[in-house]
Structure formats: structure tokens, C-alpha cells
């Protein structure tokens, strides 16, 4: 049955419809695969097989995702399941409702299955900030899977999930997808409802799919998008079929290469793989045009002011009163708050809350937060200018391949710089996708490299078409980690 878990969503659905196997067969094969490989990957925090099996046994396979199990990042609420955000703060928490994306998945016949590990409250780039376990990269289990949606990417790469949902605030879908050799899409801001996603930075967060192919990402996007009265920032847009431009080529497509995304200090082997991929796009008919995004070098600084400011406000809800960890025997209310939060949050979350509180505090607001919001405008304008000349941008997803577990944990700034090519996308609210574009060899391991395409806001259909044309021609997405 291990073969079954190698199938993409579209192949799996074709099998259901031919009667080769049933959704229950697929779920059993998936669970057997998880039991076999997850002890070495540790992508899953928990799963409820019986509930999923009951759903699989009565699902209508003719629905858009009928019978397809989808793994869920532990920041997205699924009714009755745990939702810890990989934090001790939410140990034992059971979701009292479904996130909108989960309700939409269910309506489309998909079966939410399994809670996937992440950096605590989505803060991190390596999944090492999980309070529970260290997820390992299936291509080299001494290395990190990327983050924060590390479990969502590693499980897809290890063939212990067909596809998953992650969330992306500054690269948390695309960077782990790149480092694990799978496809990850961050939709434009407002495309997908955030209702039921535990909030980190509300002006940047988006939920999106991670899968083995661009086509599978498009199928998932078809299901999870739409205006939601529970999220006032979700956009009311005409219905769109995101698979409409798949299967095409790159003839006449104008791809911009932002010169600022090829920086000193990036891994030269990663750079050369990305340059080969750009050459490949040219051979496939694309017109390659150099463009400039002049404020790129400010993006990380802007992000760590805006994201931490928003996080400090959002995470104020964890006060140990209505849910979450509460310290024992508090002396008074202040002691209750201070010790509940000290005991419940891990180091990175505390660091970011403190930084966010500082940049919003009286006397510093103008110097940090307001200034960062103004530079955010300049970064957005860079993209607007670039998209006047090109259909999409093409660039690396991450300056490095997967690094060793433990290598950067004591150096937050260096960890933050891992997001240098993904962060500006969120600041601008545009869409981006990472697809596999080759490998680099490091200490005897073949490590995947991600190629990123960025599209203007709400241009997912075209972006997916471009990514699919490259991904299909290049063929790296069909390669699987040799060790698992």
C-alpha cells in the first residue's frame, strides 16, 4: 500500500473514481505510512484516525476534493481537535469550532487529518521553536525542515501527507516548502479567510496549501478561498478556477528578475541552481527582464517591527483566564498574568512580544512602528512598479538550503535573515509560490532548492500557470527523499 501514498491529489482522485481503491483505503495507507516514517520525521503532533475513517467511509468522492486527507498546521482550528500552536500555552486546548478553511474543506469532501508541528505561534524559520518536538527534514534528518509550517512541508515531502494547509506571515509556507522540495503557495492577502487561524500578525497572515505539485495547490486553493463574514479582511471576488491556466507553457510570459534578490552572502550553489532555473524558463519561451525592487534590504527590518507589534497585541489574549495555561497559586492578578505568560510561552515568543511592545510603546511609536509602516508603503510601491513591466517575478525562495538542527537557535537575527526573500511578499500583500528547482550537495546530502514566483495581488491563476509550466518541465517535484 505504500505506493498509494506516493500519489498526488489528482492521481488519488482518479483512483477513487476508477474504483481502484476507496478513501478509506487511502486513509489506512496514509496512517500506515505515518506510523512507519513519522518516528524519524516527527511532523505530526496528533491525529484522530477513527474520526477521519468514519468521514472517509461516507464521503462523496465526486465532490471537488472528495475523500482526500489533508494535514493541518496546528494553528488552524478543527472542531474537537487539539490546537496548540506548538505552545505549552495551549496544551490540552480543544477547538470549539472549525476554522472557515476547515468548513470549506469538509464541504468539498476533504478530510482534515492530523495536526502538524510548527514553530510556536508560527514564530520561526526552522520549526525548532516548537515546545513539543523537533521536526526533521526528510532529505537529511540532521537538518531543519524550515518553518514555521515545518510539519506541513516535511510531511508532504516524506509522503506521509498528500497535501497540507500551512500559514504564511513572512515566508512560513514557501520557505519550508523550498527546503523540503515541495510546492507551497501563499495566496494574496484577503484571498483566504483567516477566521479560525490563531492570529500572529493580522495584516500579514494568510493560510495556503503545501502539496507535491502546483496542480494540487491550485485544487486546494479552489476550495479554501472566498469572502467570509467572519473575516472582514477577506475579499468579495468573482469565482475563479485556479486550475484554468495549468498545462500551458511560458511563451510570451514576461518574468522579472529582481536584482536585489541575488545578494552577497547567499549560498553560491543555491544561487547557481536558481540561475539555471531562470535559464530554463527562458528556454521554455519566457522573456527574462531584469527589474529592481530598491527597498528590498529594508524588508526584514520593517517586518520585525510590524509583525512583532501586531503579535504583541494579538497574543495579549493569552492571559490564563478563559483558556490557556494558568500559573498555580498566584499572589494577585499581576502575578497571575506575569507567571502564566512566563510559564506558557517559549523564548522566541517572549522575545517577539517584548520587541513588539517596545516598538509600540509611548515615545518609540513614531520612530519604529510608524516609520516601518511608511517604509512598507515604499516596498509595496516597488512591486507595483515592477508589475507594470512584467507578468511575474522569479527569484530564490531562501538564500540557503536546509541548515543543521541547532545551528542558528542562539542567533535570532541570523534566523530572521533566512526570510529575506519571502518577507516583502507579505508586506505587499501579493501572492507567491515556491516550486522545487534542483539540489545542492552539502556534507553528502542532496538538499532541495526552491524557486519562487511572485505575482501581483489576486493574480493567482496566472501565477499558478507559470509555476506549473516550469515545475512540470523541470521535473524536480517528482523526486522523493531517498532515506524515507
Amino acid at each position, binding site marked *: 500500500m505504500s505506493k498509494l501514498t506516493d500519489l498526488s491529489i489528482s492521481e488519488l482522485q482518479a483512483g477513487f473514481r476508477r474504483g481502484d481503491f476507496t478513501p478509506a483505503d487511502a486513509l489506512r495507507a496514509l496512517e500506515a505510512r505515518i506510523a512507519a516514517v513519522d518516528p524519524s520525521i516527527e511532523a505530526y503532533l496528533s491525529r484522530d484516525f477513527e474520526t477521519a475513517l468514519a468521514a472517509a467511509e461516507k464521503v462523496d468522492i465526486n465532490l471537488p476534493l472528495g475523500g482526500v486527507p489533508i494535514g493541518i498546521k496546528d494553528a488552524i482550528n478543527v472542531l474537537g481537535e487539539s490546537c496548540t500552536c506548538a505552545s505549552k500555552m495551549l496544551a490540552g486546548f480543544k477547538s470549539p469550532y472549525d476554522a472557515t478553511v476547515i468548513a470549506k474543506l469538509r464541504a468539498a469532501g476533504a478530510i482534515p487529518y492530523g495536526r502538524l508541528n510548527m514553530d510556536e505561534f508560527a514564530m520561526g524559520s526552522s520549526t525548532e521553536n516548537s515546545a513539543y518536538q523537533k521536526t526533521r527534514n526528510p532529505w537529511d534528518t540532521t537538518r531543519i525542515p524550515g518553518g514555521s509550517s515545518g510539519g506541513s512541508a516535511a510531511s508532504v515531502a516524506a509522503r506521509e501527507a498528500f497535501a497540507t494547509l500551512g500559514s504564511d506571515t513572512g515566508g512560513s509556507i514557501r520557505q519550508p516548502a523550498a527546503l523540503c522540495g515541495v510546492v507551497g503557495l501563499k495566496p494574496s492577502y484577503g484571498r483566504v479567510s483567516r477566521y479560525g487561524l490563531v492570529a500572529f500578525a493580522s495584516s500579514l497572515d494568510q493560510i495556503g496549501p503545501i502539496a507535491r505539485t502546483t496542480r494540487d495547490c491550485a485544487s486546494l486553493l479552489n476550495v479554501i478561498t472566498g469572502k467570509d463574514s467572519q473575516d472582514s479582511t477577506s475579499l468579495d471576488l468573482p469565482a475563479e478556477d485556479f486550475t484554468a491556466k495549468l498545462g500551458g507553457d511560458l511563451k510570451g510570459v514576461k518574468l522579472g528578475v529582481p536584482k536585489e534578490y541575488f545578494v552577497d552572502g547567499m549560498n553560491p550553489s543555491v544561487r547557481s541552481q536558481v540561475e539555471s532555473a531562470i535559464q530554463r524558463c527562458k528556454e521554455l519561451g519566457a522573456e527574462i527582464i531584469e527589474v529592481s525592487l530598491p527597498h528590498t534590504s529594508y524588508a526584514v527590518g520593517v517586518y*520585525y517591527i510590524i509583525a512583532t507589534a501586531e503579535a504583541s497585541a494579538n497574543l495579549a489574549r493569552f492571559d490564563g483566564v478563559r483558556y*490557556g495555561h494558568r500559573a498555580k497559586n498566584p499572589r494577585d492578578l499581576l502575578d497571575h498574568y506575569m507567571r502564566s505568560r512566563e510559564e506558557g510561552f517559549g523564548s522566541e515568543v517572549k522575545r517577539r512580544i517584548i520587541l513588539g511592545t517596545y516598538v509600540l510603546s509611548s515615545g518609540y511609536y513614531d520612530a519604529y512602528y510608524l516609520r516601518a509602516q511608511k517604509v512598507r508603503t515604499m516596498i509595496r510601491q516597488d512591486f507595483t512598479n515592477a508589475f507594470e513591466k512584467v507578468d511575474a517575478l522569479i527569484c530564490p525562495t531562501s538564500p540557503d538550503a536546509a541548515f543543521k538542527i541547532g545551528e542558528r537557535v542562539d542567533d535570532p537575527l541570523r534566523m530572521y535573515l533566512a526570510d529575506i526573500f519571502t518577507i516583502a511578499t507579505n508586506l505587499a500583500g501579493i501572492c507567491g509560490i515556491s516550486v522545487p528547482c534542483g539540489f545542492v550537495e552539502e556534507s553528502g546530502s542532496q538538499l532541495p532548492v526552491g524557486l519562487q514566483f511572485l505575482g501581483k495581488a489576486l493574480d493567482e491563476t496566472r501565477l499558478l500557470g507559470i509555476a506549473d509550466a516550469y515545475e512540470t518541465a523541470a521535473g524536480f517535484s517528482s523526486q522523493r527523499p531517498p532515506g524515507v
Partner: protein
Amino acid sequence: MSSPNLDVRDVARLARIELTDEEATTFQSQLGRVLEYVEQLKTLDVTGVEPTAHANPVFNVLREDVSHPGLTREAALANAPHSANNLVVVTKVIE
């Protein structure tokens, strides 16, 4: 932007987080470096630039003022660290 003014203990208290001595020392130096890094924003001229608060400018989203079903009392209390008599029990506020 004078980052040396960051007093981690003071800000942590504003954020209602108790810190160990070790955390205070480590965070002080780590966040000092992060703040030094963001000093680069100071080199840009932002005169006349409007701030961006949101990726999509959406303002005053209103809905009809009608009630919708919400969580039951039981569901709302299920995750409370301490509850009794259908209420959340909180730490004493008034002496």
C-alpha cells in the same frame, strides 16, 4: 531610534511577562542586536509617505445588526483553566 534605551525587564513588565535573570540578560543582548539592525530604516527619507496599515485598504466593514448563534456556555467553558457554577473562576481582583 536609540535602541540602548531598551530595558528588557521594564518592557517585559508592560507585556505582562515575568522573566528569569538569565532570560533578561540573553534577551537584552539579542534584542539589542535586532534593534541595531533595524536602525537602517532611519537612513530612508520617509517625508510625505503615507503609512500602510494593511495589505488591502478595507475600511469600516459593517454588517446587519442581527444576532447569530455563538458558542454554547458549555463549549465556551470547556477550555477554561478553572470554572465553577457555569462561570470562569478568576484570580481575586479586589482585596
